[in-house]
C-alpha cells in the first residue's frame, strides 16, 4: 500500500508547472494577495480623498466639471455664518456626546464587571442599540421627540405633573441640539461599555488585592489602578468615538435634517446639503475637507494625550 502511494504523492511536486511555482514565490505571492485589497482601497478611498481635496479648490457643480478657483471656496466659507454655526455645533456635539458616552459607558462597564447572573445575555442585549441601523433607531427617537405625541412629555406632564407644557424637543434650536446629543449618547454607550469592559477584564485582580491590603478606599482603587490601567484602551476607543461622532451624518439627517433654521447642521450634513441636493460639489467638498484639520487634531490629542506611557501596557518600566 505504502509502496504504491508514495510515488503518487511526490509526483505533483516534480511536475509543478510555472504558474504554481510563480504563486509559491514569496514576493509575487505577497503582491498577488495584497492586490485586491490595495486595489479597492486605492481606487475607492485614496483616489477619492485626493479628488475631494482637488474638488474643494474648484467650482464644480453637478453636470459641469469646474475650474480651479484657488481658495475662493474656503474664503466664502469663512464668511458664511452657516458654516461657522456648523463648526460650532460639530465641536459642541462631539464634546458633550463624548463626555456623556464615556462617563456613562465607563459606569456601565464597571457595573458589568461585577459577578452578575446572565452575564452574556446581558452583554448581548446591551449591544443592541449599536447593532440596529442608526437611521432606524433615529426614526424611533424622532417619534419619541414628537411635539404632540412625545411619550416623554406625556410622562412628565400628564403622569408625573413635573412640567406644565409639552416639551418642544425639535422645534427650537437648543432643545433640538440637546435632543440629538442625547440620541447620540444613547447609541454610543454600548460600544464604549463593551470595549472598556474588555479592558477592565485584563486588569489583574492581584493589583486590587495588594491595594486592599494597603487599606485603600474604593475611589483610590479606581483612581490609581483601574483608571491608569484602562488608559491605553480608553485612548483608542476615544479616538474612534471622536472621529465618528464629529463626522456623524445619519442621526442628524434622520431626525432634524439640520433644522430648525439650520441650527443643528453638522459639517457632514451641511456638506451633503450643499453638495448633493444643492449641486455645488466644489463647495460641498470644501466643507468636507474643512473637517480634516479637526479630525487630525482630535486624533493626535486623544492618541498622544492619553496613550503615551509604556508601563501601562506592561512593557518595560520607564
Amino acid at each position: 500500500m505504502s509502496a504504491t502511494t508514495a510515488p503518487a504523492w511526490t509526483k505533483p511536486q516534480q511536475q509543478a508547472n510555472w504558474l504554481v511555482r510563480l504563486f509559491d514565490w514569496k514576493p509575487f505571492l505577497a503582491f498577488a494577495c495584497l492586490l485586491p485589497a490595495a486595489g479597492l482601497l486605492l481606487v475607492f478611498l485614496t483616489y477619492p480623498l485626493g479628488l475631494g481635496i482637488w474638488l474643494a479648490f474648484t467650482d464644480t457643480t453637478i453636470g459641469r466639471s469646474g475650474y480651479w478657483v484657488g481658495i475662493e471656496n474656503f474664503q466664502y466659507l469663512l464668511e458664511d455664518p452657516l458654516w461657522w454655526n456648523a463648526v460650532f455645533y460639530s465641536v459642541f456635539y462631539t464634546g458633550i456626546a463624548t463626555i456623556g458616552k464615556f462617563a456613562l459607558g465607563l459606569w456601565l462597564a464597571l457595573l458589568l464587571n461585577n459577578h452578575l447572573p446572565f452575564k452574556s445575555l446581558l452583554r448581548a442585549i446591551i449591544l443592541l442599540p449599536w447593532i440596529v441601523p442608526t437611521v432606524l433607531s433615529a426614526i424611533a427617537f424622532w417619534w419619541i421627540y414628537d411635539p404632540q405625541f412625545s411619550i416623554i412629555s406625556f410622562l412628565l406632564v400628564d403622569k408625573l405633573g413635573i412640567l406644565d407644557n409639552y416639551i418642544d424637543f425639535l422645534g427650537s434650536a437648543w432643545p433640538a441640539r440637546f435632543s440629538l446629543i442625547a440620541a447620540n449618547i444613547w447609541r454610543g454607550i454600548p460600544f464604549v461599555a463593551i470595549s472598556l469592559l474588555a479592558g477592565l477584564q485584563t486588569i489583574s485582580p492581584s493589583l486590587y488585592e495588594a491595594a486592599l491590603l494597603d487599606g485603600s478606599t474604593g475611589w483610590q482603587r479606581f483612581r490609581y489602578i483601574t483608571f491608569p490601567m484602562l488608559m491605553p484602551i480608553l485612548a483608542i476607543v476615544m479616538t474612534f468615538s471622536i472621529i465618528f461622532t464629529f463626522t456623524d451624518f445619519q442621526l442628524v439627517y434622520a431626525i432634524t435634517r439640520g433644522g430648525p433654521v439650520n441650527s443643528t447642521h453638522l459639517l457632514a450634513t451641511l456638506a451633503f446639503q450643499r453638495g448633493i441636493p444643492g449641486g455645488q460639489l466644489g463647495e460641498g467638498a470644501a466643507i468636507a475637507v474643512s473637517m480634516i484639520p479637526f479630525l487630525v487634531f482630535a486624533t493626535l490629542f486623544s492618541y498622544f494625550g492619553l496613550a503615551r506611557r509604556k508601563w501601562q501596557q506592561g512593557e518595560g518600566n520607564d
Partner: protein
Amino acid sequence: MTDAAVLPEAPQSNTATAQPEAMAWDNKARRMVTIYLPLACFLLILLFPFYWMTVTAFKPNAELFDYKTYNPFWIGSPTLDHIKHLLFNTAYPHWLVTTMTVAVCATFLSLFASTLAAYAIQRLRFKGSQYVGLAIYLAYLVPPSILFIPLATMVFRLGLFDSPLALILTYPTFLVPFCTWLLIGYFKSIPYELEECALIDGATRLQILRQITLPLAVPGLISAGIFSFTLSWNEFIYALAFIQSSENKTVPVAILTELVSGDVYQWGALMAGSLLGSLPVAIFYSFFVDYYVSSLTGAVKE
C-alpha cells in the same frame, strides 16, 4: 479604615450568628442599590426605544394618537395593518431584497480581499509589511462623510449612478480595513509551527492558506463576516447619495425618503418599517453574538 479595624473584633464580641447575617443583608442591600438599580435603569433606557418601536408598529391609529383613553405603554387591540400596508402598498419587499443583495455581495468581496491581505501582512512577512498594515489601519480612520462627494462624482463618471453595483464597490472602503485588522489579529493566534510543518512536507503557500490557515481561521472569518454584514446593512450616506430611483434604495434610505411624505407622518408604518428593517440584523446578530462580542473586544485590545 474604621471598617477594617472593627471587622476582626466583631465575631469575638458578638454571638457568631447575628453579626454575619446583618452584614450579609447590608451587603445585599448595598449591592442592590449600587449595582442592580443603576443596571436596571441602563437597560430600561437602552431598550425603551425598541419597545416603543414595537408597540407603535402594532397599534391601530386610534390608539396611536390618544394617550388619554388608552394606556400608551400597552397595545389595546393589536393590528397588523401597518405591516400589511408596508408589504403590499409600498416597495418594501423590494428594498429588503436590494439591501440584502448589496450587504451579502459587499461582505463577500471584502472578506475575500481582506483575508488575502491579512494573510500576506501577517504570515508572508515581506519587507515593509508592518507599514502596509499601518496604512490599512489609517484607512479605517477616513470617515465616509469626507469621501461621499468625490465618490459621487466618480460613480457618476463610471456610469454606476443609481445602480446597486456602486454600493457593492464602495462599501469595501470601510469594510476591508476593519476586516483586515480583525483577521490580522486572528491569524496571529494561529501557531506558525503548523505552517512550517506543512512547508517541510512540501506544500505550496497557496495550499497552506487553503488547507491549513483558512480552516483554522473560520471563527475569525465568521466574525468579520457578521461585522461586514451589519455595517453594510447600516450604511446610509453612500446609499443616500448614489441611489436615486425608488426601487434601488436600501431599507434605511427608503424608509426615510419614501415613507416620510407630506405633513402627516404615518408613524405606524414608519415604526413597522424600522422594526422589520432591524430584525434581519438583530436575528443574524443573535446567532453569532459570542463571536461578535469576543472579536469586538479582541479587536480593541490589539
